[in-house]
């Protein structure tokens, strides 16, 4: 073993390090708490029934955030509905149907690479492909499709982990009863993996709700209530960004951010409840 650079006895070094590590961890916590508390402190007083149900007026200086809320929900719902079948299908294919080979390596490489691509690049792609090339315009549909591609790798990864964590014995029992591969997947593997898959979907909902750069370039920033998937829409994250960066209304910006954070809180709680149930079920 190398000698410690500090001329401290190992026991003293141990104590110093412990204090240091605790201090770092606690200050990270403090920063997190301070961000959340600050936004809620400033934003909660702004939130009332009118704020949640009225459409923004005068660029968001007055009125509420009803249309950004609806825009967020529509874009997110569309993204998750589109990405889930593809993500789950990929996961089942990777985990149940193939051994590692050239094809699975390429699929995995693509999924991992997609996971690392920055949201602004998704925005550029969504803009040039969905908005311009497919001529969908700035719309809920363009935004949903772009986010679907963005969350696909998350759903693939979490679903594959969930499917792989199903004990082999479940499959063996199903096969020994004469079940086909498909019957085994549907009757034995899927029911045991469904909570893990659901957790991945919830994480993706969180990512979609929080995304700004990719949706502003594809769904647009229209303030009116979207009346269908072809209508442009502004999500809450985009609304917050525009209000805050252009200094339109700090109060309404805080209010929007508070609603966003509460929504993400709820999404996280739902995900954790699922993980807990998953853990107790495994025992």
């Amino acid at each position, binding site marked *: 073993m190398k000698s410690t650079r500090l001329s401290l006895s190992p026991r003293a070094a141990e104590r110093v390090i412990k204090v240091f590590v605790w201090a770092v961890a606690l200050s990270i916590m403090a920063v997190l708490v301070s961000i959340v508390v600050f936004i809620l402190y400033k934003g909660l007083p702004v939130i009332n029934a009118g704020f949640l149900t009225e459409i923004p007026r005068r660029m968001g200086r007055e009125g509420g955030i009803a249309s950004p809320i609806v825009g967020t929900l529509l874009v997110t719902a569309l993204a998750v509905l589109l990405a889930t079948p593809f993500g789950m299908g990929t996961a089942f294919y990777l985990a149940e149907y193939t051994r590692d080979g050239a094809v699975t390596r390429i699929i995995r490489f693509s999924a*991992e690479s997609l996971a*690392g691509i920055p949201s*602004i690049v998704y925005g550029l792609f969504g803009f040039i492909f969905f908005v311009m090339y497919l001529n969908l315009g700035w719309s809920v549909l363009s935004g949903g499709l772009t986010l679907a591609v963005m969350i696909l790798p998350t759903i693939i990864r979490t679903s594959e982990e969930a499917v792989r964590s199903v004990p082999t014995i479940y499959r063996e029992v199903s096969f020994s009863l004469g079940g086909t591969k498909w019957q085994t997947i549907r009757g034995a593997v899927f029911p045991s993996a469904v909570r893990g898959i659901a957790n991945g979907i919830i994480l993706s909902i969180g990512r979609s709700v929080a995304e700004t750069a990719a949706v502003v*370039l594809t769904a647009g920033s229209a303030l009116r209530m979207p009346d269908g998937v072809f209508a442009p829409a502004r999500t809450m994250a985009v609304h917050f960004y525009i209000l*805050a960066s252009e200094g339109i209304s700090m109060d309404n910006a805080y209010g929007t951010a508070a609603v966003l954070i509460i929504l*993400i809180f709820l999404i996280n709680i739902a995900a954790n409840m699922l993980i807990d149930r998953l853990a107790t079920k495994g025992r």
Partner: protein
Amino acid sequence: MRKLKGDLPERLFFALALSSISALALITAFIFIKGAPLIAKVGLFDFIFGMDWAPGQGKYGVFPMIIGSVSVTAGAAVIGVPAGICCSVFLTEFAPVKMRNIFRPAIQLLAGIPSVVYGFWGLLFVVPAIRAYLGGPGLSILAGSVILAIMILPTVISISEVSLLALPRQYKEGALALGMTHWQAIRSVQLPAAKSGIVAAVILGIGRAVGETMAVIMVLGNSVAVPSSLLDPVRTLTTNIGIEMGYASEEHRQALFATGIVLFVIIMALNISAQYVVRRKTK
């Protein structure tokens, strides 16, 4: 009959699994098709090493933004990586179980907060603090680095934690049995053994930092110039796209896609090296 029934789902899953390959191919193709002509026109060397970005005069050089991205990311890594590794050591080795159960979901929540909210918080607290205590405009590399450091923490913490937890228990027990203190065991046995996982965590964290747009767009000052100190304002590749995409057209828009190409290539290089490190570990 049964065989055919078993084959259909496999073909379907395979088709769904091709989605991530086609998504990656489409993204690559469309970003390059849209951006490459401008790089060809300006010249690759002049585009990458050009010092002037003046779309009105047809000058497109992204070197100041490359320096911007690199310096902000390096700053974020210098602050965020040690803090993140510290935190993962805290969670796996020092924290009482109760604390761990509060910390993990809290870190997850930290990951879910919209990046625009971080940026806004930075604008309200970090920027004025830098202006008051260190001088300069406050909008600076340092401000961006601090915000990004906070943002990459969840990535660094969760991946290094997983690789520390994955170590066989005997490593630590053996070290302690030899008379090492807890910290000596962590420093000279556990951290080196988990090295490749931690390196992957750092690379992925850096990838997130390079690609982040909305968190830094409000705190960097966005001026196109090569900075001479950490307190100078700067523009990154991502914020260049984020700021100008809203009103750019024709050649200017192509130039932003070309900026996207540079970003895409940097990210893919980071992705591939992270995947390489992880794969070498699993072998």
